[in-house]
């Protein structure tokens, strides 16, 4: 059984069919790229996969269970996490707290136990604190733990958002243009990070990106969207040489 199974997914905004009959299966541990011209509907696909938009048609299954109609936070529990094209951190909170909020599913103490500081509170908080710090270390961000998220440099903010998504323990991670606004060197580092994540956490990744260096460099499969429709699927090599993709997207 595939990890993620999307069948005939469509959404309509007024007269505009932003995504049209989208089909995709992703297996565990896969790294798949989703590319296409601006406005092709990539982010919209993410929004449907994570419950932000309700699709007009089609079905989405994670581990065989349909998630259509579920709330975003329920979908997170089913194992899908994401980042946003425009970074959405908890800006005024510390880097560590950003992670802790996403990590809250690992804490079990009740409101009552929390308020009156009963033993389980201390135990849970202690493990959470240590685990989240360890988590930040994986991303080389341990030093920033107590800094307000909004004061991080741009690249670090992107990284934090990825780390935060990972803290929810997803089976599949969806990244929306993680390299936007990064210079080639930083992008290169990001590539390493993404691969590291995939291996270390053993999850599947679905990635939207316009930086072909990154996409072609790490994706195993690529899906190309144009005007809401899939126009090509295949390996990076196939995609790079697909005349349709060259015409509407890659150029040259």
């Amino acid at each position: 059984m595939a990890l993620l199974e999307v069948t005939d997914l469509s959404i309509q905004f007024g007269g505009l069919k932003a995504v049209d009959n989208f089909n995709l299966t992703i297996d565990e541990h896969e790294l798949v790229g989703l590319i296409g011209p601006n406005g092709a509907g990539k982010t919209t696909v993410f929004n449907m996969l994570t419950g932000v938009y309700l699709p007009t048609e089609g079905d989405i299954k994670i581990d065989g269970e349909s998630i259509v109609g579920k709330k975003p936070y329920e979908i997170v529990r089913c194992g899908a996490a994401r980042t946003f094209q425009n970074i959405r951190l908890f800006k005024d909170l510390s880097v560590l707290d950003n992670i802790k909020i996403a990590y809250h599913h690992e804490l079990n103490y009740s409101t009552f136990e929390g308020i009156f500081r009963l033993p389980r509170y201390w135990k849970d908080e202690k493990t959470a604190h240590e685990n989240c710090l360890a988590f930040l270390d994986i991303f080389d961000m341990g030093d920033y733990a107590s800094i307000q998220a909004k004061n991080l440099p741009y690249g670090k903010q992107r990284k934090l958002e990825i780390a935060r998504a990972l803290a929810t323990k997803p089976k599949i991670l969806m990244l929306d243009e993680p390299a936007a606004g990064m210079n080639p060197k930083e992008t290169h580092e990001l590539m390493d990070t993404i691969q590291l994540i995939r291996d270390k956490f053993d999850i599947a990744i679905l990635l939207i990106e316009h930086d072909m260096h990154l996409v072609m460099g790490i994706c195993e499969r690529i899906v190309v969207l144009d005007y809401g429709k899939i126009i090509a699927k295949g390996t990076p090599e196939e995609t790079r040489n697909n005349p349709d993709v060259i015409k509407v997207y890659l150029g040259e």
Partner: protein
Amino acid sequence: MILFLQQMINGLSVGSIYALIALGYTMVYGIIKLINFAHGEIMMAGAYFAFLIAITTNLPFPLVLVFSMIMAAILGMFTEYIAYKPLRNAPRISALITAIGVSFFLQNLALVIFKANPKIMPELIVKKPISIGALKIGTVTLTTLVLSIIFMIILDIFVKKTKPGKAMRAVSEDKEAAMLMGINVDRTISITFAIGSALGALGGVLYSITYTQVFPTMGVMPGLKAFVAAVLGGIGLIPGAVLGGFVIGMIETVSKAYISSQWSDAIVFGLLIIVLLFKPTGILGKNEKEKV
């Protein structure tokens, strides 16, 4: 039936005043997203300006109106400059608190100057009811009704079609980006306050003629109701303000006349709550989901 129609006219009369005041609210809210709690007090000030000029001179009604509107516009711009401008980049709720502060201040200033006793507004418009069949409609009501609709149309065109109007909308969305277009943001906001305040004064003068009195706290309730009207119609939307005003006026009248006079406020607010729950952006507002 006649009774019912007469009640509808009563509703129109109340509603058209709310509509006028709500226009000012919506203008200011639309541009700087500030619930201008002091709007009711600007309205009160407008009424006092008219009162003062009317008892000291013999100016005809339209001139009294214009005078009061200009004075209120100046007052509005002044309060904006003193109390809101320094808070442009502060959290929105802080500006809300200064607005409340300004509202208290103007009220208490009026109390100190004029005392709490209501002043009697001279009858600037001859209050002769015009009869249409068995129905009677007051001249003040008619004036208010006509003015509220005229101003709605003018303002709507102004904001949608003219350059300064578009500048206002740009400022409302993103002040920095608006500056980069060459828009003078400070002036635009000033103008918005001026227009909003002038409309508030207009409402205030007509209100005080209708209800014969001018007093320091006169702005509180109509201010609140007009605000509710603006929200009900879809805040930031000019036709929404007017529609909301009329709807509130009608509901109030109908509930006073046919349901229960003591529950009328509860009915108005209750209905507002219900409408917002089903249509969170008000009657004319569009439901737009935030794109992420």
